[in-house]
């Protein structure tokens, strides 16, 4: 009998997929991707070399797909812990809409496609950085650090901080001090951002057995560390102006945003131990998103303005 005539489904594991295109889009973590796209775009536009507009769009698209691919691989590996956390239980893999193998294949194919596209059409330095970022997020953070140390998001934060550097490398073919500072801002911003979330999602993480800082060293120590990292990131945010990469306008905005960040972190530090509502932590989490967006938007506006004013006749 020819194989094609064998249409009986004796395999108990066989099932026809009910996953829609939207489920595959969800595997790419579109909200994280939007932040990656934005920061990569800022790195690319702020670079002193202007890339062909179409190649710039392709570079951003490749970085976005690479970030999405690492999100899909993260969801493949973390399906067991995602299933027990309320925030993530409805993700495509733990909810059963997408099978783990499908998510793995999707993530691997997109990883290879995005890195090769960036390498062939833009340059191999940015492609190598993208490949390293995917590797760092999936293997170093997801598979190793996340379940083993409360410093997981501190070190793993590097993966989220690379996109502006990749954007810069796509335009210039090198890694400048400017892009290193943009990397540092996101890297130092990650701990206060995630620990604010971990404070009010502490029980979720405990149920999943993830050693987030509040579960390991307690809320009081986490609040102090949030404050310490905020004290670090606020001045680093002003560094681009300090080194003369931007105008004083950016410096003022960054200083104001940093002062706001410290104010919110101070409120978190002053939070009572038994505070169940944790309003300061929730406010800190929301403000942290605004802070990062504001810093990068100000950097972008400053770069575009500087370039426009430098045009002959302007």
């Amino acid at each position, binding site marked *: 009998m020819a194989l094609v005539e064998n*249409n009986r489904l004796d395999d108990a594991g066989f099932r026809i*997929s009910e996953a*829609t295109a939207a489920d595959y889009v969800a595997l790419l973590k579109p909200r994280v991707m939007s932040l990656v796209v934005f920061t990569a775009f800022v790195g690319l536009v702020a670079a002193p070399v202007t890339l*062909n507009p179409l*190649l710039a769009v392709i570079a951003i698209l490749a970085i976005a797909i690479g970030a999405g691919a690492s999100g899909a691989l993260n969801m493949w590996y973390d399906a067991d812990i995602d299933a027990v956390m309320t925030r993530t239980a409805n993700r495509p893999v733990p909810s059963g809409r997408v099978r783990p193998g499908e998510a793995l294949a999707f993530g691997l194919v997109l990883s290879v496609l995005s890195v090769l596209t960036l390498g062939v*059409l833009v340059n191999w330095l940015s492609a190598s950085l993208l490949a390293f970022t995917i590797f760092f997020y999936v293997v170093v953070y997801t598979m190793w650090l996340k379940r083993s140390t409360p410093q997981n998001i501190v070190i793993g934060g590097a993966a989220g901080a690379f996109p502006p550097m990749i954007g810069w490398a796509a335009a210039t073919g090198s890694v400048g001090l400017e892009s290193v500072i943009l990397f540092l801002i996101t890297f130092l911003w990650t701990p206060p951002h995630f620990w604010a979330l971990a404070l009010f999602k502490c029980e979720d993480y405990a149920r999943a057995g993830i050693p987030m800082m509040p579960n390991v060293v307690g809320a009081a120590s986490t609040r102090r560390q949030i404050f310490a990292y905020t004290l670090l990131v606020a001045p680093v945010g002003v560094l681009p102006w300090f080194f003369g990469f931007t105008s004083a306008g950016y410096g003022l905005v960054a200083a104001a945003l940093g002062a706001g960040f410290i104010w919110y972190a101070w409120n978190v530090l002053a939070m009572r131990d038994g505070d169940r509502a944790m309003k300061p932590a929730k406010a800190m989490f929301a403000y942290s998103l605004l802070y990062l967006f504001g810093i990068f938007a100000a950097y972008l506006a400053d770069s575009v303005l500087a370039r426009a004013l430098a045009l002959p006749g302007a």
Partner: protein
Amino acid sequence: MKDDELVTMTEKQKRARRSRSIAIGLALAVLVVLFYFATIAKFGPAILDRPL
């Protein structure tokens, strides 16, 4: 071969398959257009300048 041994998809499965098919089709079409114009942008008119 009896009919009940064949795979019969539910409406939900058919809708899901259609949604995936459209998405794959669109993604492939976008890639074709992107790579076509990217090739021109990358190499410019020099792409035609080769020994025959």
